[in-house]
């Protein structure tokens, strides 16, 4: 399941310096994702997280992701 999220995020943030997906519990439904991308430059944290939610809309909607932690950084 981590691979699916990894692919979705890499597709949504092409050229991102870092995309990391951690399965926090090993159960395939509690994730911590980290994305470092120039796309976040100048955006509020709220808008940065919205971009991540957009990328993961499908696994969020179908219940795959029970809990999601997000860390975003601009690629400064």
């Amino acid at each position, binding site marked *: 399941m981590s691979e699916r999220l990894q692919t979705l995020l890499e597709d949504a943030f092409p050229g991102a310096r870092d995309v990391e997906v951690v399965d926090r519990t090993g159960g395939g439904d509690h994730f911590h994702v980290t994305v470092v991308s120039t796309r976040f430059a100048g955006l509020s944290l*709220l808008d940065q*997280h919205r971009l991540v939610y957009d990328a993961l809309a499908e696994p969020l909607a179908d219940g795959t992701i029970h*809990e*999601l932690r997000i860390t975003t950084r601009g690629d400064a």
Partner: protein
Amino acid sequence: MSDLSARIQQTIDTEPVVAFIKGTHEQCMCGNSERALHALRSVGASFTAVDVLPDPAIRQELTVISSWPTIPQVFVGGELIGGADIVQELAATGELEAKLNEKLGDSWRNGGEERTVDVTDRANPLRLVP
């Protein structure tokens, strides 16, 4: 707009700091909700909690209003601030206090008072959860 949606919107509009969480301020049922409340407490903010668990429609209507897919959701002065990760990060950098000051003046500490209200009660909107 449904009655429930109207009551959720009213809560967002009238409560200075409101956190939509799983559980209550006294009995939090989710780690992320707990992290959001902990961040608010760390700066000494007074807040009103809304438990989304009693009725799935609360979360559905809230998400329509906020366009934010997950719980918790923290609003200050009617504006969505973010979920647990953002509120925690803002608290750590001092930006949460700055946002509270900007939106609410100096009234937001209010002795760190905490309460949970029930938005599902038609007859008595914003009834306190005992």
